[in-house]
């Protein structure tokens, strides 16, 4: 078991004359892991997050970070000891990107030159070109601003990172990029991250553990994402997790044992001519370009998603289902053809792993 970094002990937040936003919450958050708070609007997930760095003061109960009661320290100093990333990057418009990133070290008394040097390093860490440091936030795209927000939160190298729906205002492609980037960063940095989102997909992709909040700040389920998808604790969690949960859960199943079949391949020139059956078109480096159609005149049909080494059963099944020929294309690490997958074999593998789980241990 991982060690607890943050603990909520019977924490309640009650605003005047209303239902409690957070009701008697007790939970412990693992050190060095990503814990995701997920739930519908008004479920108290953001309030709970903001109580950790005292942006919101609890009505009753105690929160400890690394064993120390957060209310024992002046709020401003407490906040400087944690990174915070918010939905609308919240960068200061009048300061350059570099100075925005250097904010917390400067508040901690680090000399300007050193703080800026560190800030420039961090831009690199979050994947931004160093030339962007001299720009102002209004000159960046939404995705770039969010990266700067992450760099700013990391600037003082805090052990705890609080992220409040940081990726919900960017488009899906950029969001996917930022999520992968966060996972990459986390593999290097191993921070204790608390991440708030209303998107169950994001929660299962990012979370080592997921806390599903019900309205009124009650903790409906707190478990690994795979368990939440496989065994929702109650109807609320089941309905919140949504109707694709069976398919989504395949993300957590390894597809290493899947069988790859040799594929019928042609080169680009041959694809133009007629074919008797679907054939995979390859370039000179044997990277797949698409499929040659067996219908009149042939021609190149765009392929489906690709299955790469280490991908989950979800990716494998999607590769097969999205392919025009019904055969999923598997490639190696360099993008060269490794073989093709058959949907019925993937389904057989899923059934087999279900049967394995049913057998008494």
């Amino acid at each position, binding site marked *: 078991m991982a060690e607890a970094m943050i603990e909520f002990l019977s924490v309640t937040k009650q605003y005047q004359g209303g239902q409690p936003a957070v009701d008697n919450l007790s939970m412990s958050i693992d050190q060095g892991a990503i814990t995701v708070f997920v739930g519908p609007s008004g479920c108290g997930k953001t309030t709970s997050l903001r109580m950790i760095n005292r942006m919101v003061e609890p009505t009753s109960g105690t929160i400890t970070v690394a064993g120390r009661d957060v209310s024992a320290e002046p709020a401003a100093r407490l906040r400087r000891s944690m990174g915070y990333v918010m939905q609308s990057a919240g960068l200061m418009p009048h300061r350059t990107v570099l100075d925005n990133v250097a904010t917390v070290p400067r508040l901690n008394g680090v000399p300007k030159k050193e703080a800026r040097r560190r800030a420039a390093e961090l831009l690199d860490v979050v994947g931004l070109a160093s*030339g962007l440091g001299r720009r102002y936030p209004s000159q960046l795209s939404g995705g770039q601003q969010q990266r700067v927000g992450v760099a700013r939160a990391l600037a003082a190298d805090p052990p705890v990172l609080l992220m409040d729906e940081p990726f919900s205002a960017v488009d899906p492609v950029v969001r996917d990029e930022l999520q992968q980037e966060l996972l990459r960063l986390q593999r290097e940095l191993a921070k204790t991250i608390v991440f708030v989102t209303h998107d169950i997909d994001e929660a299962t992709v990012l979370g080592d553990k997921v806390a599903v909040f019900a309205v009124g700040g009650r903790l409906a389920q707190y478990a690994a994402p795979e368990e939440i998808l496989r065994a929702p604790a109650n109807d609320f969690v089941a309905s919140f997790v949504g109707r694709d949960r069976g398919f989504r859960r395949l993300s957590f199943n390894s597809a290493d044992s899947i069988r790859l079949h040799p594929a019928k391949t042609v080169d680009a020139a041959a694809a133009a001519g007629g074919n008797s059956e679907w054939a995979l078109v390859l370039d000179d480096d044997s990277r797949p370009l698409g499929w040659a159609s067996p219908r009149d005149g042939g021609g190149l049909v765009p392929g489906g998603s690709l299955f790469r080494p280490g991908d989950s059963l979800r990716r494998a099944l999607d590769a097969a289902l999205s392919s025009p020929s019904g055969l999923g294309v598997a490639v190696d690490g360099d993008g060269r053809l490794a073989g093709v997958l058959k949907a019925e074999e993937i389904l057989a593998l899923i059934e087999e792993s279900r049967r394995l789980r049913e057998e008494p241990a």
Partner: protein
Amino acid sequence: MNPFADTFAWLASPANWGGSGGIAVRLLEHLQYSALVLAIAAAIAMPLGLYIGHTGRGRVAAVAVAGALRALPTLGLLVLFALLAGSGLMPPVWALVILTVPPLLAGSYAGISSVDPAVVDGARAMGMTELQILFRVELPNGLPVLAGGVRTAVLQVIATVSVVAYLPLGGLGRYLFDGLVLQDFPRMLGGSLLIAALAIAVDLILAAGQRMILSPGLSTDSRGGRRPAEDLAAAAPAGPDLQGGTP
């Protein structure tokens, strides 16, 4: 004779510029009165405006009081203060202070509250103290709106400080009241032209000063400052290293 030609002759005559009652001395007096009024009014209005803008407390009361003060008649207030407090410089100055507080208060309050709440929230979450938030975040970002209030107040003071000549004190207003009594039209028109020119000159200086201290990061959607578009073109990033994408 043409009164405009006479006015021009009056303004151009070196005799009218020198001496103890000359234009140069009146101009200086005018600026001194204006500066005194503005300094006192700012000392009252700015801290109050910053406090209200930052905390949101007392907003309703401030708007009501500022509105009521604005409705007071200038000359009436001036005479009232002179009658109550006697002659001298300070009674009319206090009367003008009362009239100058509202635009300064409204400007500073509106400037601070014009700052995006998400930016303030971010600054607080980074661990800034309330004073650091006010002076390092809200003030520089609220500056465009705040400076608007200050410039309005300055223009108003330079125009209305003329009335102290009624009491009678110095300043460029002397020419208006003296010209009226003497039926000297060129002197009156010349005096009002000088006041208008002074107001415009001071406003231009303030505009230039504002442009100098305003962060280029804030000028994206205003006319002033460096054009960010040029910066963007100059610093055009290499596309691929920003993408870092997933397959």
